[in-house]
């Protein structure tokens, strides 16, 4: 291979390259600082690296889409996904400022893994080749398995990591088998070439549908579609909350980005075959997620099932499979990043040291004791349930709009009914905070980094809601 080709269009991966170099620097610095208690320096460095990565993304933002070695592309959608993932990463670092000292760890490994996960997630959005997609999936999955078990003294954390790892490895197998079958069917790992072969009637047709089905299992696991969602509540609950916050948003954004691109670039000619099963999965996911969330008393489990339900809503965009639907999904994920990380941020503030979870009763009377914290949580909850004029409403609005335009009004109807159901459990938290009295002392595990994160996410949720047009223009679909 011509080595010049290696550098042509390498700017496509500039953000990933910046982060990868950054991770190496971070690990070196970690070794250098080992003797002293310098977790603040490491966190600052991690944030600097992620901000640099964001700068690199913005640098190539306006450029015309380019492709790198037939494996990665920098189009508007890839950049939107990068933005979401980087935001999740930055807040992940900020939110772990209290957690790491509490388990007496410096955090060099933690931050390195987190940034590695970010790299993998960003790659998912850019991949245009099944192999790159699989590598990206594994990069972030492996990092997340370790991060989930980072709280070694907490058996729940270990359980979460084991469960996530075993089931995740299993799902990866399905995924890679599906990719192999698609390769067999299309004669190539490149999305575009698979599409060309399949749409011209060539290739081995009998392998396509099994391939899609297996791929779907892999993706379904990563984005927690029902019935592949069983791990979600346990892992979300057991993993350290900052990790949960980061992973709930990052994984969702990355896996959906990969999912959307594969289905819409490589397999649009089979839309008739995969749309109906996905529609059924969307309905199941939304409904089961919401109905189960209704019954949770742990806030982290409630948010886990709520994230299952949100995955169902985003899946509607894939069923619609129009350009407008993908930009709606990008907007939804962007809004979801702020409101979901914010909600987990409040959980971090309220959970006791080393407990790693919060029961809903803990929110009783929060409105009187810590009004600003309660208002922030109320904003996140109302936004998650899709009440205007907050960010979450416009996410749902755009997705339902895309569904109606794709002649899927029935799916939009099920979607809005589901958001009405979801309002019940989100509202229960709001009711606990403002309508009930606190029973005991509420301990507040605050800190400048967390306060800053909560302030930024709250403001973002409101501002995105009030000026949705600005962001809808910025975030592109396929």
């Amino acid at each position: 291979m011509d080595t010049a080709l290696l550098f042509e269009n390498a700017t496509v991966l500039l953000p990933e390259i910046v982060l990868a170099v950054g991770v190496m620097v971070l690990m070196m610095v970690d070794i250098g600082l080992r003797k002293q208690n310098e977790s603040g320096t490491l966190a600052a460095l991690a944030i600097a690296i992620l901000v640099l990565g964001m700068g690199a993304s913005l640098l190539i933002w306006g450029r015309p889409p380019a492709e790198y070695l037939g494996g990665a592309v920098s189009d508007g959608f890839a950049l939107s996904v990068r933005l979401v993932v980087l935001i999740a990463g930055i807040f992940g670092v900020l939110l772990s400022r209290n957690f790491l000292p509490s388990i007496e760890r410096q955090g060099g490994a933690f931050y390195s893994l987190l940034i590695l996960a970010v790299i993998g997630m960003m790659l998912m959005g850019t991949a245009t080749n099944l192999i790159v997609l699989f590598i990206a999936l594994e990069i972030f999955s492996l990092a997340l398995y370790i991060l989930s078990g980072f709280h070694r003294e907490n058996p729940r954390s270990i359980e979460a990591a084991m469960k996530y790892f075993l089931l995740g490895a299993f799902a990866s197998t399905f995924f890679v088998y599906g990719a192999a079958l698609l390769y067999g069917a299309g004669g190539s790992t490149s999305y575009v070439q698979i599409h060309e072969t399949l749409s011209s009637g060539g290739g081995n047709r009998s392998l396509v549908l099994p391939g899609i089905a297996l791929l779907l299992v892999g993706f379904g696991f990563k984005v927690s579609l029902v019935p592949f969602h069983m791990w979600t509540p346990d892992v979300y609950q057991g993993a350290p909350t900052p990790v949960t916050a980061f992973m709930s948003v990052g994984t969702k954004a990355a896996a959906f980005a990969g999912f959307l691109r594969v289905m819409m670039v490589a397999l649009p000619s089979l839309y008739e075959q995969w749309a109906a099963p996905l529609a059924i999965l969307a309905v199941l996911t939304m409904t089961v997620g919401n109905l189960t969330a209704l019954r949770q008393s742990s806030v982290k489990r409630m948010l886990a099932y709520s994230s299952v339900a949100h995955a169902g809503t985003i899946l509607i965009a894939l069923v619609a499979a129009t350009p407008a639907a993908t930009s709606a999904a990008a907007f939804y994920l962007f809004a979801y990043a702020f409101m979901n990380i914010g909600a987990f941020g409040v959980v971090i503030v309220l959970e006791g040291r080393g407990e790693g979870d919060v029961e809903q009763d803990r929110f009783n009377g929060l409105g009187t004791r810590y009004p600003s914290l309660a208002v922030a949580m109320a904003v996140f909850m109302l936004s998650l349930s899709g009440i205007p004029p907050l960010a979450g409403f416009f996410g749902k609005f755009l997705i339902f709009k895309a569904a109606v335009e794709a002649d899927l009004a029935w799916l939009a109807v099920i979607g809005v009914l589901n958001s009405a159901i979801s309002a019940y459990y989100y509202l229960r938290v709001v009711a606990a905070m403002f309508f009930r009295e606190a029973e005991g002392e509420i301990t507040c595990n605050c800190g400048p980094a967390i306060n800053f994160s909560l302030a930024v996410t709250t403001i973002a949720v409101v501002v995105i809601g009030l000026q949705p047009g600005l962001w809808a223009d910025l975030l592109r679909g396929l």
Partner: protein
Amino acid sequence: MLLSVLIFLPLAGAIIVLIAPSDGMKKALAFGAAVATFVVSLLLLPGWQDIAGMQFVERYAWMPGLNIHYHLGVDGISLWLVVLTTFLMPIAVAFSNQHVKQSVGGYLALMLLMETAVLGVFLALDLVLFYVFWEFSLIPMALLIGKWGSDNRVYAAVKFFLYTLAGSALMLVAILALYFQTGTFDLLELQSLGVPAGLQQVAFLAFALAFAIKVPLFPFHTWLPDAHVEAPTAGSVILAGVLLKLGTYGFVRFALPLFPVAVADYASLISILAIVGIIYGALVALAQRDLKSLVAYSSVAHMGFVVLGIFALNEQAISGAVLQMVNHGLSTGALFLMVGMLYERRHTRLLSDFGGLWASVPIFCFFFLVVAMSSAGLPGLNGFVGEFLILLGTYKSTPLFAVLGTVGVILAAWYLLHAFRKVAQGALENPANFKENLPDLNWKEIWQLVPIVALFFVIGFAPNLFLSKINPSAGAVADLQMPVEGDTLTADGQDLSPLIAEDELSAAWR
């Protein structure tokens, strides 16, 4: 600009109230903001033209990519509802300033926030903007009920929130479907483009469900007694006075102009539900032992009248319905205010705890009588004009409905007089009600009631002041409707309606 100022002035007030240092200052600022908003709303009147179209229009792109606009405008249908909102708010704030003890700043800020939401609903001409304000109005009200309500408040707040939220969920899909078919969210553009007949049926049902729950139309009324009874007094005043009008306003502003074909199909059904509501609400009100529940159920009956008028689909009835929305806001608002005043003194609302109050608190009883009479539709007071126009218009389209509606008028007089008799008349037996133990209204309270009562008489005697601004717009809505056989509305009826009303009125008064 004026309309934007109107919408966002209360919001600014809410923020200032939250950051004000002392309770006293919070109260003064909230009252000031409410009064200022009222004054701004009165600025609409000098430049008003008696035309059907939208006035004071503002239109900016909000989400340009999706053709969503920040589009505001006011016409004869919304004008008085806007003024009603801004008028009731200072009174509700004044009452709250006097009686709310617990975290008064948050309470007042939520009241002002609600004013912003409600004014937004009345003024929005873009379906998405409308939906945003519509849903947003739930949050402050649910918080007011849930935090400052009485014993069963959490249940009532959650029920109120979920019931109305679920009701409007399908409306969102209908709005999206309208956009998909026509490419616009703009009400006026949709009106001129026309909605395809096939879509009208489904979209109408989705909109009607949201509006019917808000009104509330029988059988969707079950949230109302809980919400009303549990809400704090000022909350009930705004809930009954303004929030219920969002539903009926929605019918007039959106359902009728956009879906005339579907409206023609469903008008009879909805009218029948309205009549059932009128009679059912009245009978249930009659059976209540709690004064506040009685007033709450009277709202079901009275709002039934408004819906009956709207779905008579002619100008008189629609004008009457719009005026009756204002009337109900005033009378029921005043009734809740007075129940609240009584409750603050006695901490009970059971009718059996009262009796003979005329001897101990005559000023209260005098106002109570006037307000009850206004609610019962006594000629010379505001309620009569609206009910009369509604019945007249309904008679024109379906005489039977008018006859059945009249039964409701009689029942209204019955339960209101029943309430008055139980409270004010009879023997003064309970020592807690004796003059020494039960102070009469003080000046502050009298000043909260006087403006409302004054308006009863103004509307009662000079309804044309109001109807002349309502009629052109109501006529325009009626003109959009499908022609019905044997219908005699249009030109002659248009000019006559206010005259007839006034003639009959003065005749009755003499």
